[in-house]
């Protein structure tokens, strides 16, 4: 079953603009991760934010986490055509003890036009 729900399902922007994607989840988590997928191939790990963190940055990426609202957002600043991909959030359920598995949302398709 899907844990996270990304919003919007699809996003179309121009190069140079910022892109914001949101993720909501249902259970308590150990951490939340964002992945990128190009053309239905493998997933590329972007960033991991732990449940006791509120914000994290990596290059042009900024992730926030609000555990009280069970939600996260991914901001990509100054987007490029190469950022065109599907973006997924994945949660590591806090009920997992001694092991770690990920539950993914359905993803947001981002299209960045030149």
């Amino acid at each position, binding site marked *: 079953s899907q844990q996270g729900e990304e919003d919007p399902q699809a996003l179309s922007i121009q190069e140079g603009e910022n892109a914001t994607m949101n993720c909501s989840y249902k259970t308590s988590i150990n951490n939340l*991760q964002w992945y990128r997928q190009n053309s239905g*191939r493998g997933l590329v790990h972007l960033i991991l934010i732990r449940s006791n963190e509120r914000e994290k940055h990596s290059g042009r990426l900024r992730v926030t986490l609000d555990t009280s609202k069970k939600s996260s957002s991914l901001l990509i600043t100054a987007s490029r055509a190469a950022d065109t991909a599907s973006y997924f959030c994945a949660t590591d359920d806090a009920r997992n003890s001694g*092991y770690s*598995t990920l539950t993914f949302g359905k993803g947001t398709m981002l299209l960045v036009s030149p």
Partner: protein
Amino acid sequence: DAGVTQSPTHLIKTRGQQVTLRCSPKSGHDTVSWYQQALGQGPQFIFQYYEEEERQRGNFPDRFSGHQFPNYSSELNVNALLLGDSALYLCASSLGTETEAFFGQGTRLTVV
């Protein structure tokens, strides 16, 4: 340093057949997880192997089985294939209980 490698890249099988997919984890990783991704959906967890044992399993029927070898590589077997098994199968490796997982490029399985 080789990342996660999966083989084959693409596969076409007939309903009722059996299939074996293979995964070699990232160097130094000892845990392998398998995910199924249907078209337009997010990946769904199938199972995870650690120390050659199935450590955790998702909501998949017994037709889905796996194995992990002493060198940490893994196989995913699917018996009695159904049309609905058509999907991208992703392998992810990680170290112990660490969450950060590295994914392979996947095997695209088409059942006709």
